[in-house]
């Protein structure tokens, strides 16, 4: 318990440093971003007035302090340029949920399909299914995914007569985005479960299990699969949480109003509060996810006791 507390404290410290570093990085950007298209039309005085108005002429530490002050009150502040004067929580709220829905749908499919594929590949290692699966994994990992997305958008809309863009009212418009999102995730889960299972299969206890008369199938189900899932479990919570961050490619290609492109836009428009809020969100997700993962793994694996792993991250 003490270990969890210390770990939590360190995580908060890491978060503060991360947010501060990103804040400082943002301050290094040229000021054009604050004005967008109107940059060339305004004179110096107007620009200064606008910057002052936005609170951007305060020294950086004051800005940072304001940000943290509000944060402690649970207030993420207001957007500066993206949707001026609109509360960040309001901007994020709907988008997060949209991304989460797509993410969870794809994660569910990916886990089921990916894990089955990986188990199949490990079971028939070196045989046809394994080779086919490996081709898929290599293709999905090596080639920039956007190429697949574009091809899917070009051809699948025609072949299967599916809508090109996302439409809230049309459930069919979910199919292609979820398919795209799952494409890479399936490969990811298949690859890792296969790798872990092959590792397990080479272990001595499998030899003993075989020697005591278990069938290969029983060894797979009773011993190998369970043991191979444990290392996967470590990354599961983070994967679930990360679904809220959306996918830039998929959301922009299918014009889904999610969080995917928000970070890029926020940086381009130099919406400091929004960027900070997003970075804070994503970093906390990473940290919390890893912690949950460790706890999950400790419940599966009796050898791991939280507290004596000695900072082996």
């Amino acid at each position, binding site marked *: 318990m003490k270990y969890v507390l210390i770990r939590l404290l360190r995580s908060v410290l*890491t*978060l503060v*440093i*991360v947010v501060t*570093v*990103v804040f400082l*990085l*943002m301050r*290094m*950007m*040229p000021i054009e*971003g604050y004005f967008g298209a109107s940059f060339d039309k305004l004179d110096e005085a107007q620009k200064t007035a606008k910057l002052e108005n936005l609170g951007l002429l305060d020294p950086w530490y004051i800005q940072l302090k304001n940000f943290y002050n509000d944060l402690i009150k649970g207030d993420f502040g207001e957007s500066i340029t993206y949707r001026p004067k609109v509360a960040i929580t309001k901007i994020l709220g709907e988008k997060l949920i949209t991304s989460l829905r797509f993410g969870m749908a794809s994660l569910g499919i990916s886990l089921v399909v990916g894990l089955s594929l990986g188990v199949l590949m490990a079971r028939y290692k070196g045989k046809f299914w394994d080779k086919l699966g490996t081709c898929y994994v*290599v*293709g999905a*990992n*090596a*080639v*920039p*995914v*956007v*190429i697949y997305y*574009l*091809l899917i*958008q*070009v051809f699948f809309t025609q072949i299967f007569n599916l809508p090109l863009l996302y439409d809230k009212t049309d459930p069919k418009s979910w199919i292609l985005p979820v398919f795209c999102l799952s494409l890479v995730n399936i490969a990811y889960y298949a690859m890792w479960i296969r790798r872990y299972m092959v590792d397990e299969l080479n272990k001595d206890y499998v030899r003993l299990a075989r020697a005591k008369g278990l069938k290969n199938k029983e060894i797979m189900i009773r011993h190998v699969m369970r043991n191979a899932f444990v290392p996967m479990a470590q990354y599961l919570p983070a994967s679930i949480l990360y679904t809220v*961050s959306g996918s*830039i*490619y998929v959301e922009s290609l299918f014009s889904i109003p999610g969080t995917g*492109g928000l*970070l*890029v836009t926020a*940086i*381009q428009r130099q919406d400091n509060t929004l*960027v900070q809020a997003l*970075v804070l969100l*994503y*970093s906390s997700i*990473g*940290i919390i996810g890893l912690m949950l993962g460790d706890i999950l793994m400790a419940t599966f694996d009796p050898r791991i006791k939280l507290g004596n792993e000695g*900072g082996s*991250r």
Partner: protein
Amino acid sequence: MTSKKIINNMADNIDPSLFEFADYDQSKGELTGYSNYSFWRSTVQVFMKNKVAVALLVLIACVVLFTLVQPYLPGQKSPTQIYNNPETNLQFRNVQPNNEFWFGTNSIGQDLWARIWSGTRTSLFIGVAVGLFEAVVGITIGALWGYVRKLDAIITEIYNVWDNIPTTVVLIILTYIMKPSIPTIIFAMCMTGWLQMARFVRNLIIIIRDREYNLASRCLGTPTSRIITKNLLPYLVSVIMLRMALAIPAAIGNEVFLSYIGMGLPVDIPSLGNLINEGRALMMDPSQRYQLFFPAAVISVVTISFYVIGNVFADSADPRNHV
């Protein structure tokens, strides 16, 4: 004990002269052993057994060679020049592939064939540069991180912070602060890429660091630098080669991504990312899809080749596979 019985009497009629002592030659006893093992020969042997990887290696070697010599071949067009139709004096816009323009032209009349090879050159250069930088920085930091205990806590903290900043943020902010150019993109990718390499190297080093032979080396007073380079690094060859080989497809992917969000190289520099972007703009017109397909095909060939070669080589360099 006088009546020794031959259980198997197949050998009754043997020349009695054979029952004499043979000359004993100790080296003959050694000869029969099977210790003609060589790490690199076995690595090459195992690699060569994978026909797919060998084929891809040949293929990628040809592609790389071709991108290097292509501009000097006769009859090649410039990747950036806009070509006009001498009859109408209009630009050759979106011309389908033909004898003149092998891969057709783009929307402003540039030769796609030349642009693709120029773009491949650019992207490969970025990839190789990032890969090399990652290797040098990643190995150096990883080795220090893993080997020098005093530095462990500090570097771990730096790693935790840096790793928690989303890669996108770093990439975008850095390309924003510095003006878009090839060096900028390389720099931005290097700033995020070395982390993984460093962590891999560190983890491996921690595993091998306390093995007995290293302990022995330390006891004998071998300097740290020598232990790292002579005892540890050879173990890392397979991992390092893998990371470097994977850095190239990753860098190409990142370049495509940055171009996609409009923060890549300036549009007047042909790169695979820019070409994909140009192709994307026209992809809904079936007659113009060649502008997407050609660069997409080249990207696929290059990235898959490096990915497969890297993986197969890493497997081959793993002594456990040298059976």
